[in-house]
């Protein structure tokens, strides 16, 4: 039997092989979107009839929808007919050495500390590496299997666990939820699936690394996590993308289902290519993430968002069951010409439901960051409680930060607290650090990490370290 270490080594090695370049011959569907294309995707994936129909239904609904215009971002509308909706690596080309990789990218990885050596230390982390649209590798499956935990690609889940997929897919984020969710429902090619059986505490962090790889390929992942009654899972999702010249559309859907007494902790570090210093290129990241909490269930979203050119994303919780708890911890960094409109929705439906929102925005350069949050208390949500803290930190004078808190209450017993601050990294703080021998870049990293501490503390240890470094890199050269 393989040791955990050698297994990880193999996985991380393959990550370098497949993860970071496009030197893979892809089996690619020509650009364009039509029923025909959807049938091809479904056929290529050898999907059952019900799945094909599900997609086509979504597509028909999608055709009647329009792109949302309310987020506080501007960008040229992506040409959906120019996108190729399916590509699968046909041949895994071995590379002689890392010399063939974009040195700038390697440099970033080095700074992030994701060296092979360090990855080896991440024992206890199972990874499901998604390259373009097909899962290349799933680890620790057997070990998880002993506990009845299913952790596999969405494609596999459709084949092997159709009853679970049928029962839950689209129940938290309906096909018609929004334009990009509908598009995703029609064309999603892969993603991750996770099921934790009743009463099982998943013994390790489940981790998926998504990577966008093929030029001009939109990525439409679909993630479904189901925590059955009284179970627990901590799920990590992180991503990096290679330097890119053209815009890449990314429209993922993530659905979490926490049944009675279950808990899901979902952590994301999002680091896609944000475009260059002049705002050229970069990923469009339009994501729908939502969780459903039944009785006494808890869903906790933690995100560190540093990447993408344009982002809109609102990981949300529907607190349906009594005593259920929703949490949202977010750090969103924008620099140069990045735009982000992100936040959360806490929908309180059940009695004694509780939610906490901690949002830390950091804007630098000419960027624009918005927090948009909705706290909704339904008529039957007796004694619902919410606490929101939304802070923004500005660096320089060229950036903009906005806060849009929405509160809708239909029950008088609700207690809602909202706090917001806006601050600037002061020259005083920098000088104070300088005077102690701490240079400017280090000083900014220190101050920013301190500011984000409440959120970073929510991340699993090794992720927190990576996130700290990422924050520092994202803000390099942004003061002066």
């Amino acid at each position, binding site marked *: 039997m393989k040791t955990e270490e050698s297994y990880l080594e193999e996985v991380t090695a393959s990550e370098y092989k497949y993860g970071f370049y496009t030197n893979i011959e892809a089996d690619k569907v020509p650009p364009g979107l039509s029923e025909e294309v959807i049938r091809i995707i479904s056929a290529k994936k050898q999907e059952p009839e019900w799945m094909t129909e599900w997609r086509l239904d979504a597509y028909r609904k999608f055709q009647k929808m329009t792109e949302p215009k309310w987020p506080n971002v501007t960008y040229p509308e992506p040409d959906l007919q120019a996108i190729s909706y399916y590509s699968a690596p046909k041949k895994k080309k071995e590379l002689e050495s890392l010399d063939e990789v974009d040195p700038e990218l390697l440099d970033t990885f080095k700074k992030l500390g994701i060296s092979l050596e360090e990855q080896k230390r991440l024992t206890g982390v199972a990874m499901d590496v998604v390259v373009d649209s097909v899962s290349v590798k799933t680890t620790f499956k057997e070990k998880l299997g002993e506990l009845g935990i299913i952790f596999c690609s969405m494609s596999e889940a459709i084949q092997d666990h159709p009853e679970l997929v049928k029962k839950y897919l689209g129940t938290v984020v309906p096909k018609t939820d929004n334009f990009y969710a509908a598009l995703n429902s029609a064309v999603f090619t892969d993603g991750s699936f996770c099921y934790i059986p009743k009463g099982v505490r998943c013994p390790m962090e489940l981790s998926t690394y998504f990577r966008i790889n093929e030029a001009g390929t939109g990525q439409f992942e679909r993630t479904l996590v189901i925590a059955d009654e009284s179970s627990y899972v901590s799920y990590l999702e992180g991503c990096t993308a290679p330097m890119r010249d053209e815009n890449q559309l990314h429209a993922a859907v993530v659905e979490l289902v926490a049944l009675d007494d279950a808990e899901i902790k979902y952590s994301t570090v999002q680091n896609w290519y944000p475009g260059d210093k002049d705002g050229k290129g970069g990923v469009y990241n339009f994501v729908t993430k939502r969780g459903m909490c039944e009785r006494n269930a808890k869903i906790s979203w933690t995100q560190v968002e540093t990447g993408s050119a344009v982002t809109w994303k609102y990981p949300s919780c529907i607190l349906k069951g009594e005593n259920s708890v929703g949490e949202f911890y977010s750090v969103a960094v924008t620099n140069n010409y990045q735009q982000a409109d992100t936040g959360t929705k806490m929908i309180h439906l059940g009695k004694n439901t509780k939610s906490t929102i901690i949002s830390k925005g950091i804007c630098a350069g000419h960027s624009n960051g918005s927090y948009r949050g909705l706290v909704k208390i339904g008529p039957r949500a007796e004694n619902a409680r919410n606490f929101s803290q939304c802070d923004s930190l500005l660096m320089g004078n060229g950036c903009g930060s906005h806060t849009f808190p929405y509160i809708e209450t239909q029950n008088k017993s609700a207690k809602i607290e909202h706090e917001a601050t806006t601050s600037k990294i*002061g020259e005083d703080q920098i*000088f104070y650090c300088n005077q102690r*021998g*701490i240079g400017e870049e280090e000083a900014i990293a220190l*101050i920013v990490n301190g500011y984000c501490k409440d959120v970073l503390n929510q991340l699993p240890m090794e992720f927190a370290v990576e996130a700290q470094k990422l924050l520092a890199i994202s803000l390099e050269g942004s003061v002066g």
Partner: protein
Amino acid sequence: MLKINNLQAEIEGKSILKGIDLEVKPGEVHAIMGPNGSGKSTLSSVIAGREEYEVTGGNIDFEGEDLLDLGADERAHKGIFLSFQYPVEIPGVTVTNFIKTAINETRKARGQETMPANVMLKMMREKMSLLEIDNAFLSRSLNEGFSGGEKKRNEIFQMAMLEPKLAILDETDSGLDIDALRIVANGVNKLKSKNNAVIVITHYQRLLEHIVPDYVHVLYKGKIVKSGTKDLALELEAKGYDWLKEGVEA
């Protein structure tokens, strides 16, 4: 060690320092006194390298090197420490983390290895007992919610950890009660050696009873208008500054 020669500085076009001369040798303690607004904090900021102040004339030599060519962090690496009159808050950054970063960044700049955690911990314990600081202090956010006295004590704690060659204490005594003053002064005295020097900026004779200066200078309207020994401080305490002002205004 430090030679300041005809130093002139301004901020926002307003001239503040108007020709300062000062020489500090290793092992010496200098006190700088003077009414509010005379430029004491400006002088310490300029020595420490705060960029908002523009040096319009003169020079500062530190151990044979022109300080004005160096950034604030580089001056710190050379061994210059400023205890701030108004220490700055950095939310979410613990005292420990801040000091650890300061020490290791300084060591890195000097081409030294990072300080092993156990060595640092031991050093922290020593200096904490010297300054009668308790453990809980270390995990608090830097200066956030600190009382005036805690802030000043924290400055001296950092000084003790960084072991500078030249320490400038800008009104470190303000905000300290008598006991705290004694503890801090005692700490400063323990850290004194024949190789380092201290510039104490204060309004009060009180501190100088504990940290005894070799020289006392009076700064007024951006100039040193009088220098003397520790007796000058006593005289100022008794007579105030007015008798010195007259000479300048004339």
